[in-house]
């Protein structure tokens, strides 16, 4: 019994033990339990939104072309950060961004010009602190709308002048993200105008661009300015003084000038600066001075003590001081108002300013050379030499410039095959010529084809004989000596020359008066003698001062021109009285130059000086 009880007890104990073991083993492994309850804000409020790039205060956005819209939103509550956004234009979604910042490009090709509506939906964290909030699956949606104004018209840039400065104006950039307008080469401003205090008138294109607050730069417009640089002009005052002037620059308050005058007559160079309002430079200029003048226009701020002016445009003029004239070569002063000249095979009559009133080939069909041509005192005949038509030697011809008739004197020098350019010749206004060949001297009536007289020269002449014929063809003056000489006065009588008397005169300064064929003038020892040719009468003597030098006589206006060291002196041929003195550049006697008085003008170097 005891044994059985013992066994039963063992079985009970083992069973209990087994149940105990199984129970423990079933639940003996550690199992984590419990959970953390997250405290949340159940009623969050929407955060304030600011934008660092896109102005939220503006209701209108202007699109001016292909344009990048940069945005960077910021939440006022750090627990409600911006998670992303969606952008709509005219109700159509255009962009989705999972960020608080980004860019959107407006393409002109995709956005018609006109009015549109843009909407941005912003997604922020809810800020509740919940698990969903932390996983960004719980958001607050904020919406902002703008009116989009797409304006693709070209932006106008204009200018005006204000108080001597250039003022640029342009269409206004209407978005609120303007940082500044940038004007290329010039500066920047926040206004839609700019006063350029450095512009001096150069040709320039002003490119205007818009710099936005985000650093983007967009081309806005441009304006090309034509050059407006002072161009100096030579001017003559009423009192026959000379100066240089230029138009007043519209930008006179922003510029100054540097001038430089180089006068070749006195080898002096004068330079300096003038302010922008100046328009005149008066230099030490006298009639017929040849000078160079440089005028540099530059900004007023340019340093004067350096060569900075060299980088700015310089306008240069070279000129003779005086009224412009245009004298042709081989000009004869044989009219009161017009001049006669021949060049190549053309004979001209023209005004002193260069205007041609008559031009005609000397001979229509001839292309051969001419030599030693001479116009008659009143320009009615042209005397010259050319090759003979048969090709043998040289012949003389006379052309009536009124009728065009040409008369010849053949076989003057049949053995000489070359034209002699050194021969002396003169012709009267009625077609009687006096001329020479290498061996002979002729007096020939071209119109009537009559050889009035001739003489054989004792020795072949290489240098010209000095002779002149009176305008009416009735008298001849001849001299064969240089220096102070006696000149013989002949009368043409039928077919011979009759010597009437001799006169004393300095070389070449004896001549017939083209307006009075019976008047001769001679110069001897500072005395001009006016002589009636036939019968001989000394009409008057006109005395020059010791420092005076005779220049010429304008027989058409009966005026004599002489000069001294610093003056032009004009006297009456009729009375010898002094008419006028005009200041001239002071020169030493040995530097005196030759001036011509004609029709109340003094001529030199293609410039002239009015004497009235």
């Amino acid at each position, binding site marked *: 019994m005891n044994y059985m009880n013992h066994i039963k007890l063992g079985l009970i*104990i083992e069973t209990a033990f087994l149940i105990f073991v199984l129970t423990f083993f079933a639940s003996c492994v550690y199992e984590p339990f419990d959970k953390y309850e997250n405290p949340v804000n159940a009623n969050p409020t929407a955060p304030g939104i600011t934008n660092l790039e896109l102005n939220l205060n503006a209701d209108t956005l202007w699109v001016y072309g292909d344009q990048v819209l940069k945005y960077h939103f910021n939440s006022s509550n750090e627990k409600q950060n911006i998670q992303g956004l969606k952008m709509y234009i005219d109700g159509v979604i255009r962009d989705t961004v999972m960020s608080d910042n980004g860019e959107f490009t407006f393409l002109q090709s995709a956005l018609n010009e006109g009015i549109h509506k843009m909407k941005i939906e912003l997604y922020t964290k809810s800020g509740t602190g*919940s698990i969903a909030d932390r996983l960004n699956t719980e958001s607050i949606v904020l919406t902002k709308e703008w009116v989009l104004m797409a304006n693709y018209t070209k932006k106008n840039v204009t200018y005006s002048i204000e108080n001597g400065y250039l003022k640029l104006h342009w269409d206004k950039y209407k978005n609120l993200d303007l940082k500044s307008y940038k004007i290329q080469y010039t500066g920047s401003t926040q206004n839609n105008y700019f006063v350029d205090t450095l512009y001096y008138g150069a040709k320039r294109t002003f490119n205007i661009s818009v710099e936005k607050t985000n650093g983007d730069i967009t081309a806005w417009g441009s304006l090309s300015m034509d050059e407006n640089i002072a161009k100096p002009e030579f001017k003559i005052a009423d009192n026959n003084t000379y100066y240089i002037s230029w138009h007043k620059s519209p930008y006179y308050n922003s510029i100054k000038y540097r001038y430089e005058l180089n006068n070749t007559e006195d080898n002096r160079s004068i330079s300096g600066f003038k302010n922008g309002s100046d328009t005149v430079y008066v230099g030490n200029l006298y009639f017929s001075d040849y000078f160079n003048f440089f005028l540099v226009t530059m900004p007023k701020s340019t340093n004067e003590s350096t060569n900075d002016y060299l980088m700015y445009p310089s306008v240069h003029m070279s000129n003779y001081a005086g009224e412009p004239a245009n004298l042709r070569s081989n000009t004869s002063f044989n009219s009161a108002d017009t001049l006669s000249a021949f060049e190549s095979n053309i004979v001209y009559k023209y005004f002193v300013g260069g205007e041609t009133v008559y031009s005609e080939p000397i001979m229509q069909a001839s292309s051969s050379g001419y030599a030693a041509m001479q116009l008659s005192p009143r320009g009615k005949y042209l005397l010259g030499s050319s090759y003979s038509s048969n090709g043998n030697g040289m012949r003389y011809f006379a052309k009536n410039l009124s009728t065009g008739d040409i008369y010849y004197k053949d076989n003057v020098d049949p053995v000489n095959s070359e034209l002699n350019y050194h021969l002396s010749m003169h012709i009267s206004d009625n077609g009687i010529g006096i001329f020479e060949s290498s061996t002979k001297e002729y007096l020939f009536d071209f119109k009537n084809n009559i050889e009035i007289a001739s003489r054989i020269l004792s020795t072949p002449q290489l240098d010209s004989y000095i002779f002149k014929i009176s305008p009416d063809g009735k008298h001849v003056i001849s001299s064969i000596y240089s220096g102070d000489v006696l000149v013989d006065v002949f009368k043409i009588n039928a077919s011979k020359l009759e010597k009437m008397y001799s006169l004393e005169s300095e070389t070449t300064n004896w001549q017939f008066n083209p307006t009075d064929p019976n008047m001769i003038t001679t110069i001897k020892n500072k005395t001009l003698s006016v002589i009636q040719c036939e019968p001989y009468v000394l009409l008057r003597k006109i005395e020059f001062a010791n420092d005076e030098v005779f220049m010429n006589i304008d027989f058409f206006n009966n005026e004599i021109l002489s000069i001294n060291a610093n003056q032009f002196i004009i006297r009456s041929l009729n009375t010898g009285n002094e008419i006028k003195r005009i200041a001239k550049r002071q020169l030493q006697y040995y530097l005196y130059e030759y001036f011509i008085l004609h029709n109340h003008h003094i001529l030199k170097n293609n410039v002239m000086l009015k004497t009235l």
Partner: protein
Amino acid sequence: MNQKYIILFFLLIVLLNNLSAQNTYFGFDTGYGTYEMTENKQILEGSMKSNVLKPHRISNFPGYLLFRPYLKIEYQYFNLGIAYTLMSTGSRYSIHDYSGEYKFDAQIVGHSAGLFAEVPVSSFKGFKFLIAAESGLIFNKMNLDERLQLTEGYNQQDEYNLTSINIFVKPYLKVEYDIWKNLSANLLMGYHKDIIANKMHLEGDNLSVSDFVADWDGIRTSIGISYSFE
């Protein structure tokens, strides 16, 4: 591998039975153990800090019950035996609100198989005092379970199992009291030390090694009873 351990186990039983055995005992101890799990704590703490949901730590590998059935043969001067010990602990990170729930559970279980030897040192009025030591293998298994559930219907669960094997020693003191002819109670106190603790790898994939380590180091206290098969 497991076959080798089983063969060795039976060979050891046969060998011990051939000694001049006096009694054979079957015993069962249960008690409380503390577990270091240092690396695991650090890894999970670091991981949860970077978790956007910021879950809170609910438990962190606390000490927990252990269970130790064993078979012991008593010889004249000492006892020899084999023992199986079940150890477990774990951690939880959690957050819960109206919008959903998130939790990350790590449960680790150690199955140890060890040989122990006990030497009686004193006896007094039915009490027997012994010093002992146990050493063997621990087969570790750790389950990582991460779950996210939102009230809007979103659910996500990721679960991983990691395993490893440790070698341990456990010296302990033991007091036995004969409460019945064949039944005795005992009280045990010792310290468990993993002398080799390998990094855990994915179950079935020895190449996928993690930084988790089953670190069972800690105090062991237990009470138990044993039954003698005379």
